[in-house]
């Protein structure tokens, strides 16, 4: 199964035509040739792919680096089962 980083890379290359060599861990999302509307859609695709919900107040994420976005995704993915349990409880 592909890891989080590979899955994010697939979104960026396949849906948004970002050249692979520009997707470096320290690169900011805004430096990938994506405009503000693209970034909203990136977050939507991320949500769909990882079955998470990025909080509405996502301005900070749009300014984040790939590394920081990956950290956020991991954090939300890890929190998801706990939240589901809480909802079930």
């Amino acid at each position: 199964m592909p890891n989080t980083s590979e899955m994010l890379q697939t979104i960026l290359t396949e849906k948004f035509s970002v050249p692979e060599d520009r997707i470096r861990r320290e690169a900011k999302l805004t430096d990938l040739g994506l405009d503000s509307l693209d970034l909203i859609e990136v977050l939507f695709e991320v949500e769909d792919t990882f079955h998470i919900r990025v909080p509405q107040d996502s301005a900070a994420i749009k300014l984040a680096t790939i590394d920081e976005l990956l950290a956020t995704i991991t954090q939300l993915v890890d929190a998801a089962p706990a939240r589901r349990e809480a909802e079930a409880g």
Partner: protein
Amino acid sequence: MTDRRVVVTGIGAVSPLGSDPATLFQRLMNAESAVRAVSFEANGSYSNVAATVDYDLQTALQGRTPARLENLDRITQMAIVAARQAMAGSGAIVDDKSRHRMGVSFGTGMGSAAALEDTHQQIFARDPERVRPLTVLKVMNNSSAGHIAMQFGLAGPDLTYSCACASSAVAIGEAYRQIRHGYADVMLAGGGEASLTYSCFRSWDAMRVLAPMDAETPSATCRPFAKNRKGLVLGEGAAMVVLEERDHALRRGATIHAELAGYGSSNDHTHITRPSVEGQARAMELALADRKTPHCAIGYVNAHGTGTPMNDPTETLALKQVFGTDAFRIPVSSTKSMHGHLLGGAGALEFVISVLALTHRAIPPTANLDSADPACDLDYVPLHGREGIDLQSVLSNSFAFGGTNAVLLVSRA
């Protein structure tokens, strides 16, 4: 201000009868019909009849990212392709000096119908939490006009008109006024419709104005002016033209296809659907009076000719009211018999056909007209087109639900 005349320097069309104007006109002259059976497997195998565009829009629009292409509804995709054809043919130059005097005028009845339907499905039937983030921008009625302006960098007026089946005729007429009255030098004008969705078909069905499919020959379902006509047949597509101030076009040595020499606009004002002879006749008279074109100059009328029981005899009476006994001399045809009714896109497609009739010296036929309704007793160019016809001026009629009548008059340049 000096008298500013308006000419056509570029034409484009993505139609059920071909995705460029030349193919479209050739197939019309051959009396080919694009009308065929369509079905919706996902909706209980619902079926109907329509004239669809069979063209690879994805390939035509490559160069955009898949995400951005997905954000263009089918109508916008077709409109951009038609606009590109018109701009390429015109050779109009867009630069920092000219772009502020160049605009867009677009007409559509239903706009992004497929995107709207899909959004409703998403909200009501699938998952309202997962509505695509740029839905508003895809569905809004001026999406096509906005994307066309961006495509070419046009910074002048960017307008969208919605007047049902007269939408794109109005868009062309109002663009003509923008140039004539000095607000712009070049307008990329036209419109489109892409409403062949399940919910649109169901809504039209409910109104009982669609012709039921001709079981023997589906392509012959649309029969304007015929005794056995049973209603209209839906079509889809987009058509765009470059309108340009005449001296502006002459100075740059542009190829001038024709002059847009008149526009008439009126409303029936009595009933939301029932057409009025008086309203239609007034729109034609206004188009003729606009630049004082004599009635005798009209050598062809591209009729609104929907094929509904009400439209065709009413339009016939309106033509007689305007032209008197001369009405019997003028060939009148409904090309909707072949490309279907493009609703908001009809006026623009039929304007392009009218320009092509002038430049090709040829009149496309009314297909499927074996036997005319006695109440329709003009020369409807039945079954076969006519070539070698020396046309001076052509009228293109568009009449809409809501009562809007729009008539465009195009003359040899």
